[in-house]
C-alpha cells in the first residue's frame, strides 16, 4: 500500500507551514488520505520549523517517524532530522548537505530572479519535489490558485522554474500516482472544533490568545460563523461566555493550561448557577509557560477537578479531527442539556495538525432546548428541585435570578441547612443523567485485535492504532474522561500518554484494580507509530 512521508524543514519565516499545507492539499486532491504535523518554536523569525506531510491509501491519523523524503531550506536544520531520513533529500544550492541521495536546487536564485523575497523558496521547493516525486506540477498550480487566488501566479511561476531545473539536473525517484479525484480537503483540528461548535449552535466565542487554542479563535473570527471576541483576559472570556449563556446564547471559550487556571473560579460559578458553557482546553507542554508550541497531556487531573466545590462537569477528549467535530458539538449540546460546564480536553497535536476529515453533519443532532423566555410577573423558579436534578432554563425577559451563593428555588441567596442540602443534591443528581447519556454516546472507541489492549486518549490515537494493529494489540481510545467509562479488558493493559506519571493509566488502574504499564513521553513531541511499536515490542 502506498504511503509517503515527507518532511519540509526550515526557519520560521520560510513558509514551511504553508508549504506543508499546500502539499497536503495536493496529495488529498490526488485521492490520498493525508496527515500533517506542524512543529515550530515560539518565535516569529529564524529558529526551526518543520512540517511533516504524510499521505496514504489507507486511513491515517498520524505522521511517521521516518521520512521518505525531506526538503531542507536552511543548512542548520538538517542535523535535527538526519537520523529520520530514509529516502532522498532536496536542499537549496545555497548550502551543502552531506547526504545521499540528495538533490541541490538553486531555490534562492530562482526566487531572486523572479524578484521575490526569500519566503517564496517554499514554492521552488514544491516545484522541485513535483519533478523528483513524479507529481503533476499543473495540479500544484491549481492548488496555488485555490489557496492564493490572484496572487498564485508568482508561486506557480517559481514552482515551474524549479520543476524545469529539476527535470534538467535531477532524477525522478518515484511517481506518486493519482488514485482518485480527491476533494483536496484538509482541515486542522481547530477548524474541526470550530465547525463542530457551530454545528451545535454556537453563537458567541470568547478567547484570549494562547497557543495552541488561538487557531480556533482565528477560524471563527475569519468565517464569522459566530461572534468571536478577544477580551482582556481569560477571566473576562469565561465571564462573558456566562453572561451570553445567561441571556440564552450558546457560548464557548478556548484556552490552554495557564489561561484555564485563570478561568477556574468561573467554572465553579457556572456549576453553581447551572449555566452551560463549553471550555476548549487545548493542552501544551507545562508546567507554567513550558514549551509553548509543543504538545502534551499533562492537564488531565486539572481538567477533571479544576475548581472549588463539587458540581457536575463533563470532560471528553477527541481522538481525531473528525472526532473533534462531533465531540465539540456533542459537548456543547450536553452542556445545555445538563446546564453545567463541559470541557473539550485536547492538545496541540490535534488542534494544529491537519488531516483528511469528513464531517457528518447529520451524525450530530442538535438538541431542541426548552427555554422559557417570556416576561413574568413573579420570579421564575429557575432552580426548582426536580427528581432528575434538571430545572427549566429561563432567560430574560423572564425574571430569572442566578447566584454564586447557595440559593433557593428562585435563585435567592440562602444558608438554610435544609435548602442547602436539597439544592446541592439536586445539582449533583445531574451526574447520573450525564453518565447515562455518555454511555449512549460512544464513550470510547474499541478496536479488537488481540487479548492485550493499548489504552490511550487524545491525538495519540492515530499512532497507537497503527502500531497496535501491526503487533496484534487491541486498542481503546477513551473519549469521555468525566464520567470515565472503560471497556472490559481481558489481558494486559498498556497506556500511551504524553505526560510523566501516566495520568489516565493511574485512573484505569483504580477502575480495574490491576497494574497498567505505561508508554510515556513529556518532551513536547507527539508519538509516531514507529516509536509506539518499538516501546510495545520492548515490553514483550
Amino acid at each position, binding site marked *: 500500500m502506498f504511503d509517503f512521508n515527507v518532511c519540509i524543514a526550515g526557519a520560521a519565516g520560510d513558509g514551511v507551514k504553508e508549504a506543508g499545507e499546500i502539499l497536503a492539499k495536493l496529495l488529498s486532491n490526488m485521492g490520498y488520505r493525508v496527515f500533517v504535523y506542524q512543529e515550530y518554536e515560539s518565535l516569529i523569525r529564524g529558529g526551526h520549523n518543520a512540517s511533516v506531510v504524510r499521505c496514504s491509501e489507507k486511513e491515517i491519523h498520524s505522521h511517521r517517524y521516518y521520512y521518505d523524503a525531506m526538503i531542507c531550506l536552511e543548512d542548520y536544520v538538517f542535523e535535527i532530522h538526519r537520523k529520520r531520513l530514509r529516502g532522498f533529500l532536496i536542499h537549496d544550492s545555497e548550502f551543502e548537505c552531506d547526504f545521499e541521495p540528495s538533490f541541490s536546487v538553486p531555490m534562492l536564485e530562482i526566487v531572486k530572479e523572479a524578484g521575490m523575497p526569500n519566503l517564496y523558496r517554499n514554492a521552488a521547493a514544491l516545484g522541485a519535489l513535483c519533478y523528483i516525486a513524479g507529481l503533476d506540477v499543473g495540479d500544484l498550480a491549481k492548488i496555488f490558485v485555490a489557496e492564493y487566488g490572484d496572487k498564485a501566479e508568482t508561486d506557480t511561476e517559481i514552482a515551474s522554474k524549479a520543476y524545469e531545473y529539476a527535470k534538467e539536473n535531477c532524477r525522478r525517484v518515484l511517481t506518486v500516482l493519482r488514485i482518485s479525484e480527491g476533494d483536496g480537503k484538509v482541515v486542522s483540528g481547530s477548524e474541526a472544533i470550530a465547525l463542530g461548535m457551530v454545528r451545535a449552535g454556537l453563537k458567541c466565542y470568547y478567547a484570549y490568545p494562547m497557543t495552541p487554542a488561538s487557531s480556533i479563535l482565528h477560524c471563527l473570527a475569519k468565517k464569522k460563523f459566530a461572534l468571536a471576541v478577544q477580551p482582556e483576559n481569560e477571566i*473576562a*472570556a469565561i465571564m462573558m461566555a*456566562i453572561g451570553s449563556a445567561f441571556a440564552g446564547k450558546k457560548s464557548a471559550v478556548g484556552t490552554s493550561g495557564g489561561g484555564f487556571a485563570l478561568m477556574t473560579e468561573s467554572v465553579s460559578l457556572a456549576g453553581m448557577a447551572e449555566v452551560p458553557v463549553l471550555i476548549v482546553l487545548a493542552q501544551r507542554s507545562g508546567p507554567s509557560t513550558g514549551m509553548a508550541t509543543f504538545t502534551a497531556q499533562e492537564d488531565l487531573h486539572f481538567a477533571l477537578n479544576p475548581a472549588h466545590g463539587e458540581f457536575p462537569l463533563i470532560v471528553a477528549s477527541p481522538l481525531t479531527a473528525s472526532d473533534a467535530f462531533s465531540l465539540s458539538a456533542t459537548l456543547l449540546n450536553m452542556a445545555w442539556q445538563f446546564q453545567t460546564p463541559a470541557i473539550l480536553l485536547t492538545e496541540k497535536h490535534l488542534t494544529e495538525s491537519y488531516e483528511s476529515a469528513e464531517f457528518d453533519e447529520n451524525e450530530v443532532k442538535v438538541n431542541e432546548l426548552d427555554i422559557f423566555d417570556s416576561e413574568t*410577573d413573579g*420570579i421564575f423558579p429557575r432552580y426548582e428541585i426536580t427528581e432528575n436534578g434538571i430545572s427549566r432554563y429561563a432567560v430574560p*425577559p423572564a425574571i430569572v435570578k442566578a447566584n454564586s451563593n447557595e440559593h433557593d428555588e428562585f435563585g435567592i441567596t440562602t444558608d438554610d441547612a435544609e435548602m442547602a442540602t436539597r439544592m446541592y443534591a439536586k445539582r449533583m443528581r445531574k451526574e447520573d443523567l450525564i453518565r447515562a447519556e455518555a454511555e449512549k454516546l460512544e464513550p470510547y472507541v474499541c478496536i479488537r485485535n488481540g487479548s492485550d489492549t493499548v489504552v490511550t486518549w487524545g491525538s495519540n490515537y492515530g499512532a497507537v492504532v497503527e502500531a497496535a494493529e501491526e503487533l496484534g494489540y487491541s486498542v481503546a481510545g477513551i473519549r469521555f474522561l468525566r464520567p470515565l467509562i472503560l471497556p472490559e479488558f481481558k489481558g494486559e493493559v498498556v497506556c500511551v500518554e504524553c505526560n510523566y506519571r501516566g495520568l489516565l493509566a493511574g485512573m484505569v488502574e483504580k477502575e480495574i484494580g490491576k497494574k497498567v504499564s505505561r508508554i510515556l513521553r513529556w518532551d513536547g513531541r507527539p508519538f509516531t507509530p514507529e516509536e509506539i511499536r518499538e516501546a510495545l515490542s520492548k515490553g514483550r
Partner: protein
Amino acid sequence: MGLRTEVKVSWCPGCGNFGILRAFEKAAGRLVDEGIPRGRIAVASGIGCHGKISDYLRLPSFHVIHGRVPPFLTGLKLANPDLIAVGFVGDGDGLNEGVEHLIHAARRNTDITIFLHNNNVFGLTTGQVTATSPKGAKGKSTPYGNPENPLNPCNLMLVSGATFVARAFAGKHSQLVEIMYSAIKHRGFSFVEILQPCVSFNDFWKIREEIHDIREAESVENALRLCRDKTACGIFYRKEEETFEDAVHRINK
C-alpha cells in the same frame, strides 16, 4: 407589583446601601413607567455587602463572583442587545479584585451601566482597606496605617474612555435618582461612583455637609479637574460614541 422582592434586607441599619437601593428602585421604576418591561432590566452584582442588592430586586439578576460584573454584563449585552445591563460593584470588588475589567469595559464603550458602591472599605470581610482608602487609613489589615495611595475612580474611568462619568452621594436621594436614571439612559459605558457610608467600618455620613454640585464639563480634561475634588457630585462628563455591541454586530454582519 413593585421592584422589591420580599427578601429581608440584611444590611446594617443606617448603611448607605439603603439609599442606593431606594434610588435605583425609583430610577428603574421610571423606566418601567415609560413602558420598558421589567424583565428587560438585567442586573448583576459583585461580592460584598453591595452585592446583596440582586436579591432585593424583582428583576432578572445574577449575583456573580468577586470583581467580575463588567465582563458578565458585556457577554449578556452582546448576546441580547435588547437588555438594559446594570451592574452594582463594590470598591474592593470593582477596583481591587477586578479593576482590569472596568478599564476595558470603559475603553470599549460597552453599553452597560456600573454603579460603584464606594465605602472605601471591604465591608463584608469586616473592614480592610481598599483601592480607594486614603493613605494612612487604619483597617484590620493595616492597624498601623495604610501604606498605599488611593485611586480616584472617576478619574480612572475618564482616562479609560468612559462616555458617562458621574459621582453621587447615597444620602442625596433626588440627585442620585436623576444621575442613576441618566446613566442607564446613556447609550455606552456609564459609570457612577456613589459615596456610600458604611456605618460599621467607615462611617462618613458627616460629609453630607461638604457635598456640592458641579456643572457638566465639556472636555475630559475639565472633567478630570472637577472630579479631583472628592466631594464634588454630579455628571462630570458624557458623550455619544458607537458602542462595543454595535461595532461588533456591524463588523460581523
